[in-house]
């Protein structure tokens, strides 16, 4: 059974925001339309939207999404978690941290 965007979204929608008593879905930080999957190519791309452009929790939120996917998906999948373009002041720096495969915990 091939993995699709809905299945990926179901894995991440209930992750709690670190600061507010709400899930990432409730805060519109993650949306199914911003999830792209290719099962034959074993790739997943998730764009997440921090609630404000200077959100200091952006890296932490990105990591929680990435870790959830790493723990839930088959090892063959290559994960790309990044900030929705134009929605954060330090988008490049945060994306670079999330892409570093030597990062502890990833």
């Amino acid at each position, binding site marked *: 059974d091939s993995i699709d965007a809905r299945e990926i979204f179901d894995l991440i929608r209930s992750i709690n925001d670190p600061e507010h008593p709400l899930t990432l879905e409730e805060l519109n930080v993650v949306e199914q339309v911003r999830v792209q999957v290719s099962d034959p190519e074993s790739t997943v791309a998730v764009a997440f939207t921090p609630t404000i452009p200077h959100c200091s929790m952006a890296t932490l939120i990105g990591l929680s999404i990435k870790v959830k996917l790493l723990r839930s998906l088959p090892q063959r999948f*290559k994960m790309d978690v990044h900030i929705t373009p134009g929605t954060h002041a330090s988008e490049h720096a945060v994306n670079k941290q999330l*892409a570093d495969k030597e990062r502890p915990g990833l």
Partner: protein
Amino acid sequence: MKDSLVLLGRVPAHPDSRCWFLAWNPAGTLLASCGGDRRIRIWGTEGDSWICKSVLSEGHQRTVRKVAWSPCGNYLASASFDATTCIWKKNQDDFECVTTLEGHENEVKSVAWAPSGNLLATCSRDKSVWVWEVDEEDEYECVSVLNSHTQDVKHVVWHPSQELLASASYDDTVKLYREEEDDWVCCATLEGHESTVWSLAFDPSGQRLASCSDDRTVRIWRQYLPGNEQAHLHQAHSQDVNCVAWNPKEPGLLASCSDDGEVAFWKYQRPEGL
């Protein structure tokens, strides 16, 4: 007749984890591998098969990221995310950890022996590069802590014939170091990559330095006094380029590998007239 690459064998070297690095010993008879299972394995041939000759398992508490053989082939150094570097001494098929080098504040990313065998370099996520001296009694002493990079240092490599050290970093640069008047100093910074530089390799002549990066390019650098010049830039792979290696015997033959799972082979030629 077409070129071919024939598979000789495949071994489950680091089960349920990632195999991070490989190093052939100078004699070409053994291959050391290391990985996320915190172990180092030494592989050799028995007839037509590749078998595991040793497992070095008591050295590190976390992932072993790189291994490096000393030029004489009697020692193996291992760099680990546990912030230490182990020095293993080979005694026939056995390896014994003779020293553990401490000092880095967090994950050690790379270790490399100078061609003389008397110097060792390590680098870390703590942004520093350390130079160590080894004496005749196998005692190690840190002789320099270099804080030139502004981010995680991913790789260090020595020039094949000079005491010149190169480092690659998350800060997108390559830096070169040499000893000047008894002090190690950063003598050059190579800028051009647009993202993390993961690895470096000098060609056997030492005249070219290849670097590879998260920006998906391989760049070839040539020394051009008084500064340095980027000789060539190539879009190498569709994902992160993790490693570049020059063939030790055939000039201009370069291999690169990537997160896209591929190894690419390149022929580098200096343009006529330059």
